[in-house]
């Protein structure tokens, strides 16, 4: 029922907006009014989804299964969807001013507005349903579709670099995802061997987890991991990420980095939860920790020579995915608890950073840090957004990542002390690189007299909301969030 409500409400809203479009403009519509109307639709769409998910969280007895067990809602899925919807909603608010600016600068064509907003909304639907899909094959298909839609979103800014970035993304992600299919087939055959009828449903996999033969499960896991890791930018499947992040419009990059990147990790966490009840879990843990450390290392050294602000933040995402992978791989309930918290704080902080970077890009017409003289004076809010976001992203005390990083690292220390020291050194390099580049960028003397770019209120509002949200989740952690996170950890069988 609830799943139908998602689709129907979206279609209804689409119908209403189309009707308004026809009735009000009667063929003679300006670019701005068209953009506003499409933006209104996106806003409403995301809002409805958010309300529906909140209703499901409060009212429904979880887990809910529907459509022949193809779809389900459990605490983890709802948690991920809530994060995703919040970010989509804020990105839509931001888009109100941002897209108008892109239109003014002729970066985006009026004809591609429908394509842009259409893919944006479809992307939201696909992401939400990939989290809600109980079936691993359905999850795979929806993940593939998100890749294609993301590529379309990158290409709408019709520059040659965008086309190359999009193609790179599609090829790397799709190639890796094909290996996941091999993994799925092996998993299906394994379950058929054990129980008689094959299944790829999370719920059924969890039930039969301890009877699956470990060697085959590891084999299947490795193949699945390749695809999911490429969606989350885990080294060595990360090569598409920096370019795609740098080229996509900022409101899209915020969604990529705060929502899409979680979808691969989501699949890995679910598979790990199955492995946890299986003889394979030790090997699987080692795999996750090795790739996690590798991601942090490569990201740390890649950040040193970077001067493109969006690429820099992109590499920081790779680093955090590595950390999340380590937190998952440690396998302790405490580590998983903080990993989930880390996912939430990472999403909010990355959205803050990319939305702020979008304003800076509009001001200076460049993503390069050396092209941003007197940024603090010209764009105080966006610059402070970047500075505070960076402080949050390296894990300074008042910010939520301080707690999640601290406790994940404590657990890592209990697992292996030398590894902890190595990871700490990499994290230090990351912090150093970020601090060095930002200090150099934002202390440049003003070059010429530049007219300050007047960012629309709709672009500033999400930044403020995100900042309040980042501080808010620290307070909320002690009041209610920890209960939710404990429920999720328990529902995954830890």
């Amino acid at each position, binding site marked *: 029922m609830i799943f139908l409500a998602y689709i129907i409400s979206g279609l209804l809203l689409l119908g209403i907006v189309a009707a308004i479009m026809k009735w009000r403009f009667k063929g003679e519509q300006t670019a701005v009014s068209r953009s506003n109307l499409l933006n209104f639709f996106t806003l409403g769409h995301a809002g409805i989804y958010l309300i529906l998910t909140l209703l499901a969280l409060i009212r429904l007895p979880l887990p809910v299964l529907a459509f022949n067990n193809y779809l389900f809602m459990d605490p983890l899925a709802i948690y991920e969807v809530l994060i995703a919807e919040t970010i989509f909603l804020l990105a839509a608010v931001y888009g109100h001013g941002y897209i108008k600016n892109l239109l003014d600068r002729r970066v985006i064509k009026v004809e591609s507005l429908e394509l842009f907003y259409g893919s944006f909304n479809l992307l939201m639907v696909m992401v939400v349903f990939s989290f809600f899909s109980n079936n691993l*094959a359905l999850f795979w298909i929806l993940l*593939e579709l998100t890749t294609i839609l993301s590529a379309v979103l990158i290409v709408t800014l019709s520059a040659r670099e965008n086309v190359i970035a999009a*193609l790179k993304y599609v090829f790397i992600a799709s190639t890796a995802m*094909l290996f996941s299919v091999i993994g799925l087939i092996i998993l299906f055959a394994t379950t*058929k061997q054990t129980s008689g009828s*094959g299944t790829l449903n999370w719920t059924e996999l969890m039930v039969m987890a301890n009877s699956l033969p470990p060697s085959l499960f590891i084999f299947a896991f490795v193949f699945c991991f390749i695809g999911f890791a490429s969606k989350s930018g885990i080294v060595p499947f990360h090569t598409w990420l920096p370019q795609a992040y740098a080229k996509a419009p900022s409101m899209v990059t915020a969604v990529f980095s705060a929502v899409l990147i979680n979808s691969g990790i989501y699949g890995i966490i679910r598979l790990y939860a199955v492995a946890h009840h299986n003889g394979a879990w030790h090997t699987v843990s080692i795999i996750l920790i090795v790739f996690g450390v590798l991601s942090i290392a490569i990201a740390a050294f890649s950040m040193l020579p970077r001067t493109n602000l969006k690429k820099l933040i992109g590499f920081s995402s790779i680093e955090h995915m590595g950390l999340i992978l380590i937190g998952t791989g440690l396998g302790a309930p405490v580590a998983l608890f903080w990993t989930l918290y880390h996912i939430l704080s990472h999403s909010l902080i990355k959205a803050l950073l990319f939305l702020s970077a979008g304003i800076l890009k509009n001001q200076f017409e460049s993503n390069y840090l*050396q092209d941003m003289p007197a940024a603090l004076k010209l764009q105080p809010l966006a610059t402070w957004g970047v500075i505070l976001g960076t402080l949050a992203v390296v894990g300074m005390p008042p910010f939520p990542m301080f707690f999640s990083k601290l406790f994940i690292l404590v657990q890592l220390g209990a697992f292996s002390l030398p590894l902890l020291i190595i990871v700490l050194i990499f994290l230090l390099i990351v912090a150093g690189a970020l601090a060095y580049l930002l200090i150099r960028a934002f202390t440049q003397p003003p070059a010429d007299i530049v007219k300050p770019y007047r960012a629309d209120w709709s672009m500033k509002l999400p930044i403020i909301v995100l900042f309040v949200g980042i501080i808010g989740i620290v307070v909320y952690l002690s009041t209610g969030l920890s209960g939710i996170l404990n429920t999720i950890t328990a529902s995954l069988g830890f």
Partner: protein
Amino acid sequence: MMNPTSILLIKVLFVFILGTAALIIMQKSLASLFSLYSVQSLLMAVVSLVLFKETGSYVLLSLAILTVITKVVIIPYMLNKVRKDSGIHRDSEFRYLTPVSAILVGIALIFVSYSSFYRVFQLSQDNLFFLGAVIGVSLALLGMLVIISRKKIVTKAVGYLMMENGVLLFGLFIAELPFIIELFIIVDLVIFILLAAVLSMGIDSTEEDLTRKLNNLTKWFKQ
């Protein structure tokens, strides 16, 4: 138990499928590449037909029909249309590997997948299903080799399609997935090709502008 003639037939088909893969790795003319791909897909369809004759499962029959319609007819037609529109007829550039060394690496990949599957599944070497799985994964790896070693987007797309054939072959012999999923995979494939076709128009080279990147770096440190 399967009919010995069918087993022999499938083994012969495997050899031909690998043969087309090797030719795709080396072929420079785009038109021949697309024909090779449709021949390979036709062979795949024949394999599923033979399996259908043995098992009587209609999923396999419909899969064979779908393969013929989409991969033997529609996709090669679309690819050829892109070729004519863009005016690119040859892809003679190889990256990292020359055609001969690509073939050698391909043979190595087949051996690696054979030995690793042999250890994990612990089936007898005569088992047709084991052989099918190995050929499937090898085909997927060879497709990846094409994606890595070729420069043009269209050739990369053929490599991706070859990978997909490999995965499908693997699925045929290891497990019978519900038909709807196979269908979805094919739909997804068509969307992908559409996208690649649209994008590849107007792109002549696929390499990044390295010097421009380096210039940006030096500008930053010169200050």
